[in-house]
């Protein structure tokens, strides 16, 4: 009776947890329920952990070391995780997500290693189980290595680098992974050496796969790695016959894949192209000549006059806004202009920044009202009635080459159509190229003027100039 009670509670706990994951994801897709959804999924996770601890195995006194280590691990992980998550700045969110994603991938890979160790120490070798162990190891370690590289790149610690024959090497590594994996599954005896080789090449593939990918693709890559980890978690679920792991993992795997595809579509790139990794790295596809012409500079005073006497101003934010931590300043500018009767809105490109929705999160932090944030299509419809467009630290998402230069690597990506407005002011630190590494002919356009300087400084100057008017 007691045994069946425990087992039933265990499975009931997993069932409830699975439902909370589905509800949580569902609620995360609507602005007013999102926070509750996240909490619900969190409680579900807590429940799954507790029932596993209590009811999965019969408690026995000679396993005191195991229990101590579990509790210690939970405590250490919670302390470090909380600390990192609470301390991280809003601008560094993308790399934080990537980091935590890597941790999940590593966890899945370690689980596979331990299970392999069990097989080695006598557990029967079952082909099916071996397939699952091998796949969990491969996907988990690719996800871990890739996420860490993505983290390093967004943190500015790792540079974009492409090996000369990068694509070839990546394909060879993939083949090697398949061959070694197949050998492990096919061999009658467990092969620890093959396991280590597989681990090594999977990690290497993870690194080399993300290494050449430029920042424009970083959101796509993080989303893809996120769904990888989901799949790796699901393999764990398969291994233990655990429904909570299975549903949680697969849900994330499929939802993450769809999100990835949505993002690829927004950038007009195919997923294969991103995976093989060519864009923005080697520069092979990037034209060397660039656009030439004269650029016009504008002073903060002139820009202030232009904006203060406009009736409609649109701001196109980009990564530069995040780097300069200028979200509060731009909100102050918006309030100041509102006092002067100027309507200022924000045109949010789906891939502006380093993650989808990055700009929304950033501006939300500064309390910018929700209706002021226009999605790209809505913003473009409004553009011809706009007097001044202020581009703050964005580049590729306003590059007209995406519309009129078929040789450009970003050709076909929808852009914020700033040239439909009467005036464009681009705030930039220098004439440097955007993250995709290509020239922007917008800068040389007659409608455009450049306001050089750090986004925050320039915005503060603009504010004081407008106040002085």
């Amino acid at each position: 009776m007691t045994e069946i009670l425990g087992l039933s509670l265990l499975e009931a706990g997993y069932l409830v947890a699975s439902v909370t994951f589905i509800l949580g994801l569902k609620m995360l897709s609507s602005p007013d329920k999102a926070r509750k959804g996240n909490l619900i999924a969190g409680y579900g996770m807590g429940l799954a952990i507790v029932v596993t601890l209590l009811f999965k195995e019969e408690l026995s006194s000679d396993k005191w070391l195991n229990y101590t280590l579990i509790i210690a691990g939970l405590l250490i992980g919670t302390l470090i995780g909380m600390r990192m998550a609470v301390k991280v700045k809003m601008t560094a969110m993308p790399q934080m997500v990537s980091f935590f994603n890597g941790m999940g991938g590593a966890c899945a890979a370690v689980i596979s290693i331990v299970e392999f160790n069990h097989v080695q120490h006598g557990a029967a070798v079952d082909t099916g189980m071996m397939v699952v162990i091998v796949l969990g190891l491969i996907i988990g370690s690719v996800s871990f290595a890739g996420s860490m590289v993505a983290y390093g790149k967004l943190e500015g610690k790792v540079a974009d680098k492409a090996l000369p024959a990068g694509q070839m090497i990546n394909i060879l590594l993939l083949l090697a992974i398949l061959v070694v994996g197949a050998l492990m599954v096919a061999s009658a005896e467990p092969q620890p050496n093959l396991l280590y080789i597989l681990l090594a090449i999977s990690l290497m593939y993870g690194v080399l796969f993300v290494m050449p990918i430029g920042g424009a693709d970083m959101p796509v890559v993080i989303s893809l790695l996120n769904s990888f980890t989901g799949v790796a978690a699901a393999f764990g679920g398969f291994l233990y016959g655990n429904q909570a792991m299975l549903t949680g993992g697969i849900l994330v795997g499929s939802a993450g894949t769809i999100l990835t595809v949505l993002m690829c579509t927004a950038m007009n790139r195919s997923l294969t192209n991103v995976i093989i990794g060519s864009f923005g790295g080697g520069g092979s596809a990037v034209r060397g000549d660039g656009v030439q012409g004269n650029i016009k500079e504008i002073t903060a005073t002139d820009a202030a006059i232009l904006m203060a006497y406009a009736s409609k101003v649109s701001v196109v934010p980009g990564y530069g806004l995040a780097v300069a931590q200028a979200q509060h300043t731009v909100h102050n500018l918006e309030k100041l202009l509102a006092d002067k009767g100027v309507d200022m809105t924000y045109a949010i490109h789906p891939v502006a920044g380093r993650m989808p929705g990055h700009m929304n999160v950033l501006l939300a932090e500064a309390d910018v009202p929700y209706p002021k944030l226009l999605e790209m299509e809505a913003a473009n419809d409004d553009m011809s009635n706009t007097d001044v467009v202020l581009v703050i630290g964005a580049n590729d998402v306003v590059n007209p080459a995406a519309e009129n230069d078929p040789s450009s690597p970003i050709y076909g990506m929808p852009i914020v159509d700033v040239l439909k407005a009467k005036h464009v002011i681009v705030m930039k630190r220098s004439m440097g190229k955007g993250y995709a590494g290509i020239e922007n002919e917008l800068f040389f356009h007659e409608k455009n003027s450049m306001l050089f300087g750090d986004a925050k400084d320039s915005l503060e100057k603009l504010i004081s100039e407008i106040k002085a008017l």
Partner: protein
Amino acid sequence: MENLLTLFYEHREFIFLIIVSIFLGIEVISNVPAVLHTPLMSGANAIHGVVIIGSIIIMLQADPENYLALILGFLAVILGTLNVVGGFVVTNRMLEMFKKKEK
């Protein structure tokens, strides 16, 4: 071949669950507005932290004499907890800001 067929047959219910979950995942997020892409990604990231259950199971089943398994399992528990706790807290922080601004 027969092994694989056995695998399929023995786990038919799980395979069924996997296929249904795939469609569910697609369905559940297909209408998400771009504003919520980052929190959604982050929330999904926290949910795949469910892999922690696997690491706890490892530890519960490990032979107390098998130190390699214990050490690796301990590491896995820490990694999984980081994923879960960090994931949910970061997502909550992002969403908190959305909430404030609605008032």
